[in-house]
């Protein structure tokens, strides 16, 4: 057990109003009505000399990123401004100073996000089952190339139809949500799924609002016919909807 005060630091997950109730694993560092959700972490893990290695350690990064999300998840009901992974302070005094410096930003962000959560909507273009193998298996290069060209044309048309479907879905979801953003689709290396992701969006909604789910349910039957499958995730802390902090670049 290392007792030295320099052996730990404070990892900050997000900012809430000071009257929020923290789960056991974290503590609130309060300043003037605001509170940073923080946890004391060992510098042996989060120190500058080891962090670069840790970031490339899939086990470590995965566990800590999930923990970050878990902590913020506990504040879904009260409203939270999520920080990105890795805001680490030497002591609580520095955390208070950060709250002080960005007080106006955090206050307005909390007002804007109060009672609201993020829902994720992804769409997948499901790979069709392979057509039955041709009855003439060894017809030579030319026939093979022609068949391959037909397949490519069909695949391109599927993508075009899917693009229309997801654009329409996004438009409809924006109508029922407070706000929405479209992010870059995740690559298969990240999703582990062979189907192509054709939409990766997030919507800000009032907590408990099911309009997004209802809209997707309505779109599902006709979309599935075209090979497009929607997936709903969340509720998430509103990572995608934190207003820009004009002071951030200073």
């Amino acid at each position: 057990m290392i007792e030295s005060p320099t052996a730990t630091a404070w990892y900050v997950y997000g900012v809430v109003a000071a009257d929020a109730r923290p789960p056991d694993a974290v503590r609130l560092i309060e300043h003037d009505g605001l509170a940073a959700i923080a946890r004391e972490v060992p510098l042996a893990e989060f120190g500058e000399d080891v962090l670069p290695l840790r970031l490339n350690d899939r086990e470590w990064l995965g566990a800590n990123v999930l923990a970050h999300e878990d902590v913020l998840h506990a504040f879904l009901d009260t409203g939270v401004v999520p920080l990105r992974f890795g805001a680490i302070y030497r002591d609580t005094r520095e955390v208070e100073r950060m709250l002080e410096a960005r007080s106006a930003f955090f206050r307005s962000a909390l007002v804007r996000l109060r009672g609201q959560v993020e829902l994720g909507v992804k769409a997948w273009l499901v790979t069709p089952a392979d057509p039955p193998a041709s009855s003439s298996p060894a017809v030579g290069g030319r026939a093979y190339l022609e068949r391959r060209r037909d397949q490519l044309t069909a695949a391109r048309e599927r993508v075009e139809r899917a693009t229309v479907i997801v654009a329409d879905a996004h438009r409809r979801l924006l109508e029922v949500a407070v706000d929405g953003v479209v992010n870059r689709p995740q690559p298969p290396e990240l999703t582990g799924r062979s189907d192509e992701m054709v939409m990766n969006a997030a919507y800000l909604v009032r907590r408990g609002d099911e309009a997004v789910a209802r809209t997707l349910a309505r779109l599902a039957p006709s979309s599935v016919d075209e090979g497009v499958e929607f997936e709903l995730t969340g509720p998430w802390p509103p990572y995608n909807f934190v207003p820009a902090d004009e002071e951030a670049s200073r």
Partner: protein
Amino acid sequence: MSSELGYRSGGPAPAQLADVLERVLDKGIVIAGDIQINLLEIELLTVRLRLLIASADKAREMGIDWWEGDPFLAGRSQRRGLESRLKRLERASGLTDDDDDGGDE
């Protein structure tokens, strides 16, 4: 509880890890800690993740390859090698002019 949308029963499923990584590493506001090097590392991490999302190949070039040994994330990698080889052959034969592997940022 928050399970009304089928998320979070006993923690996120493996497929959710990608969603969590994307949000926690690339979204949310950036506030620099006071441990100097961390600012640098966060920037680096963010850049790396953006690259990963943009192109796994580019990320691999930078040495970001932790997903490759991961049974949940690595699923497609081998198959991909085959696909790109097939694509190269098709391009060489003049059958297709597609430019969809690479290109835009």
